[in-house]
């Protein structure tokens, strides 16, 4: 042991090695453990003397052991720095046989007596628990929003319908003030109906979404344009649509995404008829889509606000809608593990950018 230290490590390295906040162990080409730090002893429950000199497979659950030698050999053959990326969940086995969820970063070292692999190991049990808990509570919240808004619709429809029926049946028989009261009651109920319906749409993105499958963005945009034929004709909008790729998406949601962005381009138009360009560029293993218009544009200081639910930049009545469209768009993009942002100049136009995965991307659960 002590000889090992003197041979392999200088004092500073030893200090760092022992003081590291995570477990570190070193193995040789034959997969024998040659070094382990204090954190490593604690993590796996072995004393240094028990584990050094043993095959590393001792620390791997039996069900996963068979493939490990091949992984080690592959790494020694092509030893590239492999940082912990937060994406890989691996398992270790303690002395008492229990399993521990871990994450591993690998680096390679050439020493006088050969090549060694240094593994940094973090216990992610707590992180995994918090992640699972967060996932569960998000799902619950979504379900809550869905049920709440769905069940709110019925009584609300009764309030709105009967107030309106009262207005219909007694038109002309009530004084002006009574008619005004009815108007405000109906108007309020209808606005709330719209909000509840929007909330339902928003919560459905998460709770009712389908699987991500290869989808032709070209075909989806084509369908959206035929759905919007009316407003497109009314606004005399023109479209330029570059070749669009096949991406990994939930098809109805991708349609909703394009429909909301295109509707926005038509709605917030300037003096001239709307001109909309839709393109996609391949960048860093993603597709970056852009939807550009020549509309009103906005100050970039509002860029974050417009993606929030029920946020509107214009006074009520100027433009229809409750301000749910872009919140839904953002939610859809995020559900597709993408990102959305925009560039805008007042009076010139707005370009929305969002990323989607190419159809051949691996879909980790």
């Amino acid at each position, binding site marked *: 042991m002590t000889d090992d230290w003197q041979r392999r490590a200088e004092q500073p390295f030893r200090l760092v090695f022992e003081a590291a906040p995570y477990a570190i162990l070193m193995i040789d080409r034959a997969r024998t453990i040659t070094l382990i730090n204090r954190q490593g002893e604690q993590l796996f429950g072995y004393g240094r003397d028990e584990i050094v000199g043993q095959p590393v497979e001792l620390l791997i659950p039996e069900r996963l052991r068979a493939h490990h030698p091949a992984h080690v050999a592959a790494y020694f053959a092509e030893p590239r720095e492999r940082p912990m990326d937060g994406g890989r969940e691996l398992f270790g086995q303690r002395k008492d046989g229990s399993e521990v969820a871990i994450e591993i970063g690998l680096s390679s070292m050439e020493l006088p007596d050969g090549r060694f692999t240094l593994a940094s190991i973090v216990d992610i049990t707590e992180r995994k628990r918090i992640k699972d808990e967060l996932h569960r509570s998000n799902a619950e919240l979504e379900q809550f929003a869905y049920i709440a808004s769905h069940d709110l*619709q*019925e009584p609300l*429809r*009764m309030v709105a*319908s*009967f107030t*309106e029926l009262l207005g219909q049946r007694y038109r002309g028989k009530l004084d002006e003030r009574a008619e005004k009261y009815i108007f405000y009651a109906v108007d309020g109920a*209808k606005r709330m*109906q719209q909000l509840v319906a929007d909330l339902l749409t928003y919560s459905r993105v998460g709770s009712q979404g389908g699987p991500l499958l290869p989808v032709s963005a070209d075909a989806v945009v084509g369908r959206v344009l035929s759905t919007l034929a009316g407003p497109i004709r009314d606004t005399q909008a023109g479209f330029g649509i570059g070749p669009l790729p096949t991406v990994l998406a939930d098809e109805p949601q991708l349609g909703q995404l394009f429909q909301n962005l295109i509707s926005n381009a038509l709605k917030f138009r300037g003096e001239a008829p709307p001109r909309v360009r839709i393109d996609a560029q391949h960048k860093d293993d993603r597709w970056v889509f852009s939807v550009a218009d020549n509309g009103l544009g906005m100050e970039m200081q509002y860029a974050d606000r417009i993606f929030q639910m029920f946020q509107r930049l214009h006074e009520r009545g100027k433009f229809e809608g409750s301000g749910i469209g872009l919140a839904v768009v953002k939610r859809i993009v995020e559900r597709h593990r993408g990102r959305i942002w925009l560039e805008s100049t007042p009076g010139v136009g707005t370009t929305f950018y969002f990323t989607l995965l190419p159809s051949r991307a691996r879909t980790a659960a």
Partner: protein
Amino acid sequence: MTSPIRVLLVEDNPGDAELMRDTLESSKLLLEITVAVDGVDALDHVLQRGAHAAALRPELIILDLNLPRMHGHQFLAELRKHEPLRAIPVVILTSSDAEKDIVDSYRLGANCYVTKPMDLVAFQSIVRAVEGFWLTIVKLP
């Protein structure tokens, strides 16, 4: 042709039943509207049993799906089992727009499926359209 057309509304929400009755009664047709508050009540009606032994068979049924005691689909399945009742046209009028509800309804022998609009005027025009189509245009058995 002066005997009224018998319509059975199967609807657990008294508000909706009232809205439908209100709309239907403003039509020119002579209608006899009966409301059943759930699937079991509706079944008693069409099978002329229990409290409804003296009831006359409806000529059109307007059926909600989410009903207490017996779901609309179950009622529909029961209805289609009885020979003299198989021919009664059934219009589904529900707030559900779930694909599964739609498909299941037609499989079980619904004649058409309509969702309740949120807006009163739209609701009224839908009820009038159902009435116009099924009670004026269509020849019923």
